[in-house]
């Protein structure tokens, strides 16, 4: 109880502090100018973070495409198509990926991925694409291991029922198992997204950090977190407050994303769990 309270109050204090430091400058600059202006010249008193907001969203979206595609694919494969013994080795080794420090991912990105993109796809190499790939790999363990748990939690009867009714293995997977495990998979995506939005070090190393809205996925980009980390060491006065305000924006964005994801999974859950899976099974009988 005490531990839970101290964790919650710690969170409350941090939140209050970020807002206390960040809100005055938003009020001073004006919310519209702060969020929708392209001009970030903090030493001249211009604080527009639109490029960073767009950057964060693009990089996160890219990372989720890669992370969810491969993570979920890997989870389905592990649960439904690979015999248990190899799974006992493969799953922990994927989870081990989560223990690698983010600088290491960033460094690998700079040394291997960035020159590859520069030489074969053009542009400076440091780009939305590079950041998305690095982040996509970083969220893989989260997405995979939680999805595996969700898929394993689907009752055997669902699979057996579906197979017994003559569905192929693939039909069983995508029409019954994936639907039944949906809320767990949504949780996996939310957690992965949280990591992708918040990751800083690896992104600073591979994203190029220009303060311009990228026109293509080969253009460099700066995210909200990179902006804070890059300039924090030097910032004073209004500039420092503007970085806290960047933090406030990030906070709000994460809240919105989480709320949407939660609402989506809850609405589905309320509409009688596993409806479509059940309907499918009933259809076949």
């Amino acid at each position: 109880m005490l531990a839970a309270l101290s964790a919650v109050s710690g969170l409350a204090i941090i939140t209050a502090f970020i807002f206390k430091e960040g809100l005055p400058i938003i009020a001073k600059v004006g919310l519209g100018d702060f969020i929708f202006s392209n001009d970030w010249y903090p030493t001249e008193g211009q604080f527009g973070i639109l490029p960073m907001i767009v950057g964060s969203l693009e990089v996160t979206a890219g990372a989720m495409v890669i992370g969810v595609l491969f993570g979920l694919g890997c989870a389905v494969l592990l649960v439904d198509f690979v015999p248990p013994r190899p799974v006992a080795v493969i799953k922990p080794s994927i989870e081990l990926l989560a223990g690698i420090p983010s600088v290491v991912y960033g460094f690998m990105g700079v040394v291997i991925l960035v020159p590859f993109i520069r030489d074969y796809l053009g542009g400076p190499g440091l780009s939305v694409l590079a950041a998305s790939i690095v982040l996509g790999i970083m969220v893989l363990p989260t997405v995979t291991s939680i999805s595996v748990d969700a898929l394993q939690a689907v009752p055997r009867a669902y699979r057996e029922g579906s197979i017994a009714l003559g569905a192929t293995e693939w039909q069983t997977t995508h029409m019954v198992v994936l639907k039944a495990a949906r809320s767990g998979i949504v949780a996996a995506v939310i957690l992965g997204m949280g990591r992708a939005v918040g990751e800083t070090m690896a992104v600073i190393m591979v994203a190029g950090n220009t303060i311009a809205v990228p026109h293509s996925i080969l253009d460099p980009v700066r995210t909200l977190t990179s902006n804070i980390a890059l300039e924090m060491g030097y910032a004073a006065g209004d500039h420092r407050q503007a970085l806290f305000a960047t933090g406030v924006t990030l906070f709000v964005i994460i809240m919105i994303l989480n709320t949407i994801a939660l609402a989506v999974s809850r609405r589905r859950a309320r509409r009688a769990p596993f409806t479509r899976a059940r309907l499918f099974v009933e259809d076949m009988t």
Partner: protein
Amino acid sequence: MKWLIGIAAIVVVLNGLSLILGGGRGDAVNAVGSTSIQPFAEMLAQAYEGSHPDLYVNVQGGGSTAGLQAAANGLAQIGMCSRDLTPDETKEFRDIVIARDGLAIVVHPSNPIEGLSRDQIRRIFAGEIHNWTEVGGPDRPVRPITREEGSGTREAFVKKVMGKVRIAREALTQESNGAVKELVRNDPAGVGYMSLGLVGGELRAVDVDGVAPTSANVVAGKYPLVRPFLFVTKGKPSETAQAFIDFVLSPEGQRMIENEGLVAAK
């Protein structure tokens, strides 16, 4: 469970001991600030501790502005600053020039370009020049690489080269001399600016306004892009801080600074 508590207790006791012993280790001088000065200050601190075993110098990075803040609120006896002080700051602090450093304009070793004028450099970083052919180089795009807002190196570059012209928003931004170096070393199209003392052999520093970026030219005052490395104190430095500053300004300290590719203060 009991052994866990035991381990925790041991950790706490060890921490306490190390604090007490650490505190007893002579007088500590904290030097905080510019990441450009940091590697040189660490080297000087090591040599200084070698000859004065009872004294201890703790060097930290964080950036020029952070160094000034630390000096202002007493967290550090010495702030390290790699740019000129602003008029306001000059009123608040005492500054001592410990060395001078050239600002090198660096390109990929395969780039045949000999030199650039300050006007060309300004136009490159303002985003007006897009191809190396426009400044007499090979046919490849120009990719300027700048430092983050607030960096001492960036402020020195803006003051000496850009003037009132803004650095293009499309310029790639890296957060340290090392990151700029890593990028330019690998990108045939890149051009960046960094501390002359840290260039090393893997990049090429081009002539600026026809003057080669050598220590000799910096000393002679011919090379146009020079900035001071400052030790900044709030009021009169403490005795221990003064002793370290004296060591840095001594012929021995200054010789070490020159050996590392910087230019002595005097």
